[in-house]
């Protein structure tokens, strides 16, 4: 009994060290989304000017096919970093990617797509105060949501999509949902 008591501080120390070590490797910005397995929020976003036949993005547009909804903005630096990956996916992948131009002037959102390329099927404009983005629980851009064919949100990705996390994380989830 006594010996156990003497060991207790050591055990507590080891336990705390393990806890802190785990904490060091966690990203505080990765907050679990409460919207997983819930339907896409009600929305009817206007299209961006000059995108041809695009009628914007509404809840009904996300039904019927597994798709990715990507939150971007012309003011968003990390989106510039992410964009080549989305452009490559447009060429190489059959997964439809839709955009939400968040907290942005539609003209600027459209100009940004002209400059950097346009990987999206549909784009909806969500100017400040970004009600639709708040309905999606967005905390920053870029963020991406995988939506299944019934319009249910299945996965949220915070930060830029890279070829690596597309291959390792997002695509397997999409393929699973497409079955």
């Amino acid at each position: 009994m006594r010996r156990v008591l003497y060991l207790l501080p050591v055990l507590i120390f080891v336990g705390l060290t393990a806890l802190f070590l785990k904490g060091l490797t966690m990203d505080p910005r990765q907050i679990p989304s409460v919207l997983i397995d819930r339907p896409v929020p009600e929305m009817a976003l206007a299209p961006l000017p000059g995108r041809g036949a695009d009628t914007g993005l509404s809840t009904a547009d996300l039904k019927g096919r597994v798709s990715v909804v990507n939150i971007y903005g012309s003011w968003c630096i990390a989106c510039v970093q992410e964009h080549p990956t989305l452009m490559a996916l447009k060429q190489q992948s059959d997964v439809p990617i839709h955009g939400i131009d968040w907290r942005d002037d539609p003209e600027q959102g459209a100009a940004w797509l002209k400059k950097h390329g346009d990987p999206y099927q549909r784009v909806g404009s969500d100017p400040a105060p970004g009600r639709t983005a708040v309905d999606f629980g967005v905390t920053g851009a870029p963020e991406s949501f995988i939506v299944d064919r019934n319009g249910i949100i299945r996965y949220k990705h915070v930060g830029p999509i890279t070829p690596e996390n597309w291959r390792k994380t997002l695509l397997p989830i999409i393929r699973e949902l497409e079955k």
Partner: protein
Amino acid sequence: MRHLALCALLLGLGMASPAWAVNPDEMLKDPAKEARARELGRELRCMVCQNQSIDDSDADLARDLRLIVRERIDLGDSDNDVRRFLVERYGDYVLLKPPFKSSTLALWLGPPVLLLGAAATVALFYRRRRRTTVTPAVEVPLSPEEQRRLDRLLKETGQ
């Protein structure tokens, strides 16, 4: 003298009321509703800066949330309706004060349990020590042999 001025400055800084990030153009016309919005804004987390309230933060998303909180209040939502509206979108994390529920039991009860445990340990330690060091209630007189040894020792040291 310079120290005094420095002290006064620090004291002044300490007492200065914090500057909220709420801009005049965001405020509601009804002062009662605006006061409720302020109160709520102080307990809602800015999801970008994470350790500031939306009332404190200059982040764009915090501004959006302040506007949306005011919009909800203007639509007739109660404080709890507004909280629920945000929790449905951002989770409990948006509340700076975590709610008391099964997943937060350890968070809420951990510190008091630890404190009580520590207090109990300390109490037990002192009780046990007192029991072992306490002098016997009845003083046992020295035996004749012991008395002789004591006398001899005292004499040796020249007393």
